[in-house]
Structure formats: C-alpha cells, structure tokens
C-alpha cells in the first residue's frame, strides 16, 4: 500500500537559516499522526512546504514531498492546484483571520465546492448546508447567509473544519487548530476533527505542542526539534518509553489539571496512564458518532 503522504530528507532554508534540516515522515491512509515540537521547531514550515505556502524568501533546498506516491514539488503548478483543497486540505490555526471578512460563509464554502467539484451554485449551497450540519452547526441555512464577524471563534473554526473535509481529502494538515480557542471549545473541535476524519476517511497530520492532544487522537507521532526529527513512532511507545531526553522534557512540560507545567521532570507513569485512558474514551465516542 502506498503511503498517503511521504516526506523524505526535506530541507528548507530561509535566507542563510536552515529551518528544516532533513525531515522525513510518513502518514498512512487513515492514520492520525501528531507532529510535536517546541515553538520554532519548524512544524508550520513543514505544513507550508506541503501546501505551497512557504514565505517568498524561503526555498526547498533538498528532499521530496510525495502525495499518494506523486512528487508534489516536481509536479506542474496546475496539477498541484487540483490536489490542494480537494485531496490535501488545511485546518488553519487562527479562525479569526482565516475566513474572508467580506464574503458570506455560504459563498466561501460554495466557491470551494464549485471550484473542485464542479457543482451548480444551488447544489453547492445545499451541500454547504449539509457540511455545516456535520460540524454540529444548528440552523445551517441561516449561518450560510452570515459574515464571519457575525459568528463566534469556535463556530468559525467549525466552518473551517467543514471546508477542510468538504471534498473528502485523503490528507488533512491541521496546524494547531485549537490553540486560538478557549479550553471548552478546544475539546469540541478535537472531537469534530476525530469524527469527520472517520466519516471522510482522511489521514491527518496534526501539528501541536500539546502532548495531551497527541495522546488523545494520534496513533503515531513525530517529534521535531530545531528542524530535525528527534523521535518517531507509535504514540504509545514514544510516550511511555521516550528514547530522547528532549521528548522526556516535552512530556514533563505538559500541564495537567492537577499540576502546572514544569520543565525537565521525569515522566510520571500516572500521566501516561491518564492520557491513554482519555484517548480510548474519545475513540469510543468517535466510533459511536460514526455509526
């Protein structure tokens, strides 16, 4: 089986600075992989390289990015544009700035559907309403007629999630989709991502620095540090037997309800226990939802 998504030895430089120095990772069909690392590790740069959103002064200096076996960097611009937004989708970080402020929600979802799926205006709007229902937005027809500033941040993020899954993508890149939201909304958003990826059969590359989230929803994970992969594997293995001191430090720095974040403490086995039990609970919820 070909992997959905393969990155091999990817190097990205911004001017003289190497922000990615030979990153490799793989995402299998339907897999949810966590991409973790501290701020500045290069997580977003990896996502941007895939989506063709590198800043103007950045360049891929080496490596390969393949989607379903086809080299994204080598393919023609038009061909890549047919994949982006349809087979490869993005859930952005900041829902407040990620929707066009002067266009109605319906027009924004509708345009995406019409661009990739060649639907009529009316069918696109009907489909957009269905998508909003999928992300648990009540009165979808009313919301379609609203502008982004007329709905809450959590609702905007749900709209963006609906748009990411709109064309049944094989891969969704979620770049810290919950960091801009408050805690209660974060949980709903995570559950939605989990539910929609099951329903649409998508693999997810989930960028975060929250190991709790990784433990909850990611089967596998990759730890990035200063533009390099430090550690990689099944989430259970990495979290219970971190081979690298850096991963241990990250784990210890993960805050829990009963303990604030601390730097460089050995991983308490109880934490892992707790993270795992939460993870399985959520899986159950998702399985019920999908049925």
């Amino acid at each position, binding site marked *: 089986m070909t992997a959905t998504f393969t990155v091999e030895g990817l190097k990205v430089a911004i001017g003289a600075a190497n922000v990615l120095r030979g990153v490799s990772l793989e995402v299998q069909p339907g897999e949810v992989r966590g991409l973790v690392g501290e701020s500045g590790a290069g997580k977003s740069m990896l996502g941007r390289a895939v989506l063709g959103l590198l800043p103007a002064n950045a360049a891929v200096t080496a490596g390969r990015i393949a989607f379903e076996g086809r080299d994204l960097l080598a393919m023609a611009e038009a061909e890549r*544009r047919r994949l982006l937004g349809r087979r490869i989708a*993005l859930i952005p970080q900041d829902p407040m700035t990620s929707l*066009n*402020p*002067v266009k109605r929600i319906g027009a924004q979802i509708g*345009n*995406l559907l019409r661009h990739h799926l060649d639907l009529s205006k009316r069918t696109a709007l009907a489909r957009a309403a269905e998508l909003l229902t999928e992300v648990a937005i009540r009165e979808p027809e009313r919301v379609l007629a609203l502008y982004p500033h007329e709905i809450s941040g959590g609702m905007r993020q749900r709209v963006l999630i609906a748009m990411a899954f709109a064309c049944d993508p094989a891969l969704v890149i979620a770049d810290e989709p919950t960091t801009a939201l408050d805690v209660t909304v974060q949980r709903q958003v995570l559950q939605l991502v989990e539910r929609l990826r099951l329903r649409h059969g998508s693999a997810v590359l989930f960028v975060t620095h929250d190991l709790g989230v990784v433990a909850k929803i990611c089967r596998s994970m990759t730890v990035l540090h200063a533009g390099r992969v430090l550690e990689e594997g099944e989430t259970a293995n990495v979290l219970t037997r971190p081979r690298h001191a850096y991963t241990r430090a990250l784990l210890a720095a993960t805050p829990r309800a009963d303990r604030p974040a601390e730097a460089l403490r050995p991983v308490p086995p109880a934490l892992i226990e707790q993270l795992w039990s939460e993870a399985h609970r959520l899986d159950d919820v998702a399985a019920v939802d999908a049925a």
Partner: protein
Amino acid sequence: MRWGELIRRLVLVPPTLFGVAVIVFVLLRVVPGDPIAMMIPPGASEADIGRLRALYGLDQPILQQFATWLGQVASGDFGRSISVRQRVLELLLARLPATIELALLATMIAVVLGVVAALAGILLRGRRAEWIVDGGIGMLLAIPDFLWALILLLLFGVLIPLLPISGRIDPEIDLNLRSNFYLIESVLAGRFDIAFALLHHMILPAVALALPFAALVARLLKASLAEAEDQDYAQIARARGYSRPNILLHEVFPNALIPTVALGGVQVTLLLGGTVLVERIFSYEGIGNMAIDAVINRDFPLIQGLVLTFAVLFIALNLVVDLVVTMLDPRLRYG
C-alpha cells in the same frame, strides 16, 4: 453607516454651509478689490459710483449685507451677478452640469486606469518589472492636472491636431436637448452623434484631470491589495488550490477596495478643485472656468454662489463615499 449616523451627518450640513458662507462673505469684503471699481467706465462721477454701490447693497454695513443675502439664499435666490448681469442661480444651473459631467468622466477614466495599473503592479509583485509600474505611477502623481492639461493641449491640439482644444461642443451643432446634462441626456436618448461630439471635446480636459487621480487610485489600491494578499485568508485560499489571479480578483480585491474607496473617494474633491484651472485652459464652459472670471471681476454674489456650490458638492461627495464604504464592508453594516 447606520441610520443614526446618516441623520447626524445630514443635520450637520446646514451649520457647515453657514460656516462656509460666513467665511467667504467676510473674506471677500476684507480682501482689497471692489466689484464696482471693475465695472465703472473711466471718468465716472462719485455720485454714479455711489448709486451703483447702493444698487448692489454694498453701501450697507457688512452685517446688514450678510443678513439680506442669507435671507435671499434661504428662499433660493442667490442674487444677481454683477459682471454677467444674470441671476446667479441661473448661471450656476446652466454651468454646473458641464462640470459634473467632466468630473464624472474624469473619475471614470481615472478609476479604470488606476485599477488596471494596480492589478498589473500586484501581478508583477516581487518581480523586477514591478518598479516600472511603481515608477509610472510616481511620475503621473508628480505632474499636476493643469500641467497635464497644457501638455495634452500642446500634444494633441497643436502638434498633432487630433482633438478640439476649446469649448464643450461645436457651436453649429443643433443640440435640442432638454437639460444641461448634454452628455448624459444624449446618451440616454440614444443620440450618439451628439454624445460623440461632446466626448471629442471633453476627452483632453478629462484625461488631464484623470491622470494624477488615476495614479493616486493605483497607488492606494496596489498598497491595499498587497496588504490584503498577505492576510491569512488569502494565503489559505492558495492552499485551497485557487490560482493567484483568481485569489487577487475574488478574495483580495473586494477587501482592498474598502480602504481604497475610503481614502481615495474623498480625493475626488481634489479633482473637482482641479476643474477650475483645467476648464480655463480648455475654455470649457463649466463652473470652474466661471469661477476665475468671477474672481477677476470681484463678482461678490457669483463668487459666493460658486463657493456654496462647491461646498455642497464636497459634502455630498463625502456622504456618498461613506455610503459606498458601508456597502462594501459588511462589518460596518447592521448585523
């Protein structure tokens, strides 16, 4: 703009006009120069001069003059022009449409040129050719409209005599139109031969007025486009597989239009001000051209009427700009 705001603005119109009236009235009478001195034949007697002054009410105390004039204006009577010896209101109504048509045509030309230049500039963004567009815009901006008028007049009126260089239309053409909005009426009535003859005369002054304004529109719009293109929503549109021209046109442009109209719209007042010299240069029979004669002749009633007319135009323009911005920006509308 909300209803409350609109009403507030409308309520402010009369006091604004009153302020303008006071200023122009006082200035005219403080600055040296006297309409009577301009019109009397040499050798007129003191008594004749005195009688003329009395005829135009200039012998009264200034406060009395102002009160009388204000009373007349309130009832729609702007007095009689001293130099042309016609009613000021009639003169204004006859000439204003010519200026409005010229300004509208110039604005349309400027918007088309400005939008095309801005789009070309943004498409070339980051490439070396971008500076050609920026340089061209800078050059257009550096040359004022009356200089363009002279340049165009010399080029296309004298050097290569393609176009007429004076007037609004050939005097021998039988217009037979009902309003003084010749161009608008002839287009609406389908009389395109007349419309064409009018455009033939208007094109040079309109382009002269349009060029600096087009540069202003281009610069504002290009900067706004660049800023909007860097916003998250435009970046994310790229990740949805939309092509860059598509994003610029459908995602970025509607956003960039808002600051461009808000900042550039009020600059149409500059263009209106420019009509004074440009109409003069092309002997175009609008209120701008008339304003110069009025000032030369110290024609107090006419100057007062003209200044009030310009003030009304400026106020109306500002209102229209705010209304358009509200239409363009859903965040300013009631939810």
